[in-house]
């Protein structure tokens, strides 16, 4: 771990990027969203379980409450980023064909954004749509 035993060149150390060409960005964002998700997951599950089987008016009343809506939005964003990063690692582990891998990683990004957009739109419409 000490710097004098490092195999890296000074330039490589300054750039701090390594073989993935993106440095520790992926790893760190995975951890940051994971920390956020510990709290947001509990809130999210509590909201969904308590709303199950409830009539429409009651469900909309809860979901459009500012505090619930904001926490649901945060969980959607943090969750979408986290699951995109996680699935990318799974793809990179198991899909060995270079072209297929790029396509799968791209499709993964589209999926995460589509799910995130759908949830954000739904939560905002429930809050503002009337």
């Amino acid at each position, binding site marked *: 771990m000490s710097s004098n035993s490092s195999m890296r060149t000074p330039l490589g150390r300054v750039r701090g990027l390594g073989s993935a060409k993106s440095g520790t960005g992926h790893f760190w964002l995975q951890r940051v969203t994971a920390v956020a998700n*510990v709290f947001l997951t509990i809130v999210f599950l509590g909201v969904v*379980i308590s709303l199950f089987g409830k009539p429409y008016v009651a469900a909309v009343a809860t979901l459009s409450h500012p505090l619930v809506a904001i926490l649901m939005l945060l969980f959607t964003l943090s969750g979408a980023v986290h699951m995109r990063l996680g699935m990318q690692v799974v793809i990179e582990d198991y899909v060995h064909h270079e072209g297929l891998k790029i396509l799968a990683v791209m499709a993964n990004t589209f999926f995460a954004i589509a799910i995130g957009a759908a*949830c954000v*739109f739904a939560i905002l419409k429930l809050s503002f749509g009337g």
Partner: protein
Amino acid sequence: MAETKPIARPLSPHLQIYRWSWTMAMSIAHRVTGTALYAGTVLIAAWLVAAASGPGAYETAQAIAGSFLGRLVLFGYSFALLHHMVGGLRHFVWDMGHGYEPETRTNMAKYSVFVSAGLTILLWVVAYAMR
């Protein structure tokens, strides 16, 4: 001319060759639950979009979600989510540089099952009590 035939070289051993251990099982479980949760977001998004679409769509979604199968899927989803969360907490411990001793890591893996199962039941009891 010498023919070059591909030689059947031994492959590096994979899952089936190792004796199952708690850490191995929970590592696999972490990835499996992550993948399942990824797929499950489609259901969550569909439920939210249905609620945003109006009473008609919501009633349809609720009829499916409120059925025994629907509740079973939500129970499984919540357990997968909490198990993945507890697995993530183990990773935080490792990230801090702790918990690498054989006994500690096996215990953490073992207890992650019971902790996440307990959390799931607790959450359902609390959520139902708040209704």
